[in-house]
């Protein structure tokens, strides 16, 4: 499982911030050529981002680039400059419908052929950021095999809804739920929107805990100071891991006894409980918290 808990935006027009990318422990860095870059700096940002990606060969994290929307005159130039520097993928803004993703997929395929890369090399994370995008998210989620996650962009979404964004985020609840469902149904990871107040760490913690409960697997962020809190919230608790290991042990005993159900501390352990425990263990393994041989055979028993 590829961890994508924290997806950090770094403005493409800021050399000082680009040079610090290797230092911060975000799972994914997204060099931003879109909203963070003023129109007169689009060219310079593209070149800076390209040069940085070329020099950053010993990468310790996934590198995505947020290009400008495909409906703008900048997107094709972005792709032409950036793709030869081999980012891991593209964060696609304004993914209002599956056709936008399909269009990007075609452009990426052309570049992969041109560069002699394996087709599917470049991944896509589309960003759902309008009412239309939310409604179409089920179709968007299955629009390309390059998709590794769906992302939610609340700033543009609330603008499209003509509402204000609040710290408690009730106005985002139904959109978030819809996007999580769409992503889960398609087997994708799902990334929540940024938390804009970089000085309110407790509110960030609360929001991250909320979106984790909703099913999100990661969060976009705008400041490296937010990374640690996001990782902390997504880190499984020691008790959760301990319980998951007990569940695995219990189900193994059950299978040895020829049944798929067993009682553990007075509570029933069956297939859905095992699936949940397996998810906790997969996360703990990916975090490097435990060393455990978790195969399909362990999770589902012998077929």
């Amino acid at each position, binding site marked *: 499982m590829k961890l994508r808990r924290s997806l950090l935006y770094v403005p493409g027009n800021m050399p000082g911030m680009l*040079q*610090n990318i290797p*230092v911060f422990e975000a799972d994914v860095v997204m060099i931003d050529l879109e909203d963070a870059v003023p129109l007169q700096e689009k060219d310079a940002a593209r070149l800076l981002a390209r040069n940085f990606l070329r020099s950053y060969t010993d990468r310790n994290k996934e590198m995505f680039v947020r290009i400008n929307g495909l409906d703008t005159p900048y997107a094709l130039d972005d792709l032409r400059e950036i793709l030869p520097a081999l980012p891991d993928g593209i964060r696609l803004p304004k993914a209002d419908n599956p056709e936008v993703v399909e269009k990007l997929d075609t452009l990426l395929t052309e570049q992969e052929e041109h560069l002699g890369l394996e087709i599917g090399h470049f991944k896509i994370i589309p960003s759902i950021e309008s009412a239309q995008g939310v409604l179409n998210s089920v179709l968007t989620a299955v629009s390309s095999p390059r998709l590794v996650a769906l992302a939610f962009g609340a700033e543009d979404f609330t603008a499209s809804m003509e509402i204000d964004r609040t710290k408690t985020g009730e106005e985002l609840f139904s959109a978030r739920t819809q996007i999580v469902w769409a992503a889960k149904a398609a087997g994708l990871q799902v990334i929540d929107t940024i938390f804009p107040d970089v*000085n309110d760490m407790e509110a960030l913690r609360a929001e991250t805990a909320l979106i984790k409960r909703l099913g999100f697997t990661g969060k976009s962020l705008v*400041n*490296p100071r937010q990374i640690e809190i996001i990782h902390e919230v997504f880190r499984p608790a020691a008790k959760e891991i301990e319980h998951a290991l007990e569940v695995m042990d219990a189900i193994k005993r059950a299978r040895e006894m020829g049944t798929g159900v067993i009682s553990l501390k007075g509570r029933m352990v069956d297939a859905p409980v095992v699936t949940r425990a397996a998810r906790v263990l997969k996360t703990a393994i990916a975090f490097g918290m435990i060393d455990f041989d978790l195969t399909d055979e362990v999770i589902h028993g012998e077929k």
Partner: protein
Amino acid sequence: MAKNSLGREIPALWRGRTLDPYVDPWNKKPEVLRATRPLVRRHPSDSKLLPSLRAALEKCELRDGMNISTHHHLRNGDLLLNLLVKELDAMGLMDMGIASSSVHDVHAEIIPYIRKGVITRIETGVNGLIAQMVSKGELKCDIIVRSHGGRARSLVTGEVEVDAAFIAAPCCDVTGNMNGVHGPSACGSLGYAYTDARYAKKVVAVTDNLVRYPAAPISISQSDVDYVVQIESLGDPKKIVSTTTRVTRDPAGLLIAKYASEVIHASGLLKDGFSFQTGAGGTSLAVADNVRRLMAENKVKGSFGCGGITGYFVDMLEEGYFETLFDVQCFDNRAVDSMRRNPCHREISADLYASPFNRGCVANMLDCVILGATEVDVDFNVNVNTESSGYLLHNTGGHCDVAAGAKLAIVVAPSIRGRLPVVRDAVTTVTTPGETVDVIVTERGICVSSKHPDLVAELKRRNLPVKDIRQFHEEITRVTGKPRPIEFEDEVVALIEYRDGSIIDVVRKVHE
């Protein structure tokens, strides 16, 4: 011309002084008795109160070529040194020396008097414009940069003779009892002035807050003071102390702080009795913040914090993380307020704080100190005096004193400053020798001196990014490129004294 043990070329003689090249931190031993000052007899009816600074200067019988001193607790709010130099000029005195504890930007007002020859030498570190102009060759003024401990030593040994010390006293009575905690110019500790009060030939208390006898508490006492002068104002209260010392929000600074606190934790020093010094910079305070959290988590009760004190350290005292604060200078108003009301917040002299030549200084009792750097080199030598432009811009402060005294001296710095790498093949100027520096922490990695293989192993066990300093240097210069060397001329414009009085480096005129 001789080379000292760090390979720095030191002239044999400079402006009439025979120079003693640095050998190592512990090589030099004192061979003199303490300096003395004239004894005087005062009758009960004698008044010390004089009507003006001019009258005080005249009473001190100053002549051409003598030295005066002030102290820098009023920092950029200080008015006294400028007033004194103007009076020296008005009296027609020439070739005078300033042996203050530090000279700041506010003292750029004395530049015309340096040009005129009224002031020809500054026997201390200089922050800002004067030193920069001297480096450029635009101003002729001999500068000898001393650390806080080194300055105290030079006064105590008599190497620097202060003919008249002028002590800015925020609260003072007619006999000269004074403190720094009351009055409109309250600056807190008077730690640097203590040594002047004990060793200067004449001591003048200058106050803008003359109170009824006795001024209490007494920091410097009437028995050391010759004259008292009341003036309208000692300084600008807004600039006397900084009120903006707060934890950094810069993500790279916070990462440096996290690594530094992990190093302290891994060193094993963080146990009951832990003693700690850090500066007032945002990253240093972020280290303190992390250390406080670690002390809370591990239920550690520290013994003392020291150096320049901030509100942050005051909180740690009041919350019980430390039993005592040793304060040689207050950095903010909360520290001043704390010293006023908390007997565990102790004012100490620069001599007690950091002199290498007394019977034991507080710096020797430090477990851990966090220090800054403008440059470090692959031998762990540190520069805080000159910028990468080659200009002398900063005083040493207590840097080399506490590095020598503390069990663990950690230097924190961003790996890239501007577009320049902080780690160099060789620093432009050596302030603190690498043999007294234990760890260098940047946001890209932690470099540990070869003296500490156990610490390296423990940091690696904790998955911290430990890097060999030479490899780290190469890694950074791959990002920044190799900076073009600065061109210097042969002329030596300033000496960098190590705390023991030997010459650790010199500053040469920058070739324009």
